[in-house]
């Protein structure tokens, strides 16, 4: 299929039409969602920060294996949990985590999961979250 070039027209008319189109938009309603005040609806599947349910984790290390860039490392935490005899839990380095969701996908007990929390920026380069910090809300994590 051959594309057609526009034919010859009277000069300036097309440009004026464009100017009118642009001017027309100034009368429309802006589409901006004013972020800090009004929050846009976030879909269910939207993924950002990783959370961990300490009670559900069985320490199977599958998430450590599947993580593409080794952001997840297993760490020993002294904690009573009958399902996790070896007492190893994942910690996540958010400085390298690409939010690819493979850990959530592979987790057999759904202990590690991704949430909607995205307000994680900070002024220090310290993003290594220990298992306890992973199970806390973002505001309570002090670095």
């Amino acid at each position, binding site marked *: 299929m*051959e594309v057609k*070039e526009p034919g010859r027209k009277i000069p300036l008319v097309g440009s004026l039409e464009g100017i009118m189109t642009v001017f027309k938009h100034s009368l429309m309603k802006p589409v901006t969602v004013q972020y800090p005040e009004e929050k846009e609806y976030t879909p269910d*599947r939207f993924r950002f920060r990783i959370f961990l349910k300490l009670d559900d984790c069985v320490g199977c290390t*599958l998430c450590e294996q599947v993580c*593409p860039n080794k952001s997840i490392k297993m760490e020993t935490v002294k904690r009573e949990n009958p399902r996790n005899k070896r007492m190893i839990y994942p910690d996540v380095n958010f400085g390298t985590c690409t939010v690819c*969701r493979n850990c959530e996908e*592979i987790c057999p007990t759904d202990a590690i999961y991704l949430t909607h929390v995205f307000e994680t920026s900070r002024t220090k380069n310290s993003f290594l979250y220990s298992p306890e910090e992973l199970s806390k809300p973002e505001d309570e994590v002090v670095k």
Partner: protein
Amino acid sequence: MVAMSDWVELNIGPHHPSTHGVLRLKARVEGEMVREVEPVIGYLHRNAEKLCENTFFCDNIIYFDRMDYVGAPGMEVGYLEAAEKLLGVFPPERAVWIRTIMAELSRIASHLIWLAAFGLELGMLTPFFYCFDLRESILTIFVEASGSRLLTNYCSIGGVYQDFNEKITDEVEKFVQDAPKKVEEINSLFIKNDIFISRNKGIGVLDKNVAIEYGVTGHMLRASGVEYDVRKAEPYLAYSKVNFEIPTSTKGDNLARYLVRIEEIRQSIKIISQSIKKLPEGPFFNPKAKKSMMIRLRGDGEVYARTESSKGEFGVYIVGDGGVKPYRVRVRSPSLRNLSVMRELGRNVMIADLVSILGTTDLVFGEIDR
């Protein structure tokens, strides 16, 4: 002062507003005329091919996402075409159709980014915002489906990670209804403008034989008169079951490339509207590649698969040695070939034309440098 003093060597980039990222052009300039251009690349060389060798087959998708980052699902499809053949794990019918829709949506998203950036390069400030506004509705579908706006990581080996639900199909149908009108409106801002035509008609003419010599593919080859589209030449996914046309032109100039691209957007919308009607029921993944099986897939042999990404023929060559990780991954990046022809196109043009030629070439550096 040497005798060649009226030749100035102008270094455009690596940080320059019109180079779409980190391209450096060494240009020999004589007044306003560019006599010679030598592109220097590698400023975004992120060693993806090396990293792919050290990662599981299922994890490599994230590196392919980050290659053509403006149209990530299209890249995933390209990788999975090769990887699934190598591993022998094939997606069910529904996943194939879902992937087709995602790939076409990503093609539109990529083209819209190009249109926005091209407008900015020519000095049009406003179409940028209308393009991004339209693109936002595609990204809404992406978030709804995969949970991420840009780098979706949606397709997995043997299917897709999450199914299309009622809401997503509604969104897609709404997009198919709304988009053509908006595309025409944006198009009219460009194509009706006299200055736009004068900036692009007859500029940067790429001869058919030169294009083939340099291995140029995609819209640049089609605008030069070769009707080559992998979707037709070697149908993958569900492209053999949908009805669409390949836009071509014989002019080979900037305007032809622009028109081909706009027509591609229209055709993609057509494909999506057909696919969403034909979307079959059924499973959306192959149970062979789910949960902990993800990291146990083994592949042997070698496969070269080509797909039509938004920039051109995107090929992935995977060599496996029977392990859980690929032995060698090699990517044919279309933009690299499209860029290499700049040496021909950038001869004896004006600086302003150099910018508009670069604009229609549509480069993405994640894919060129990898």
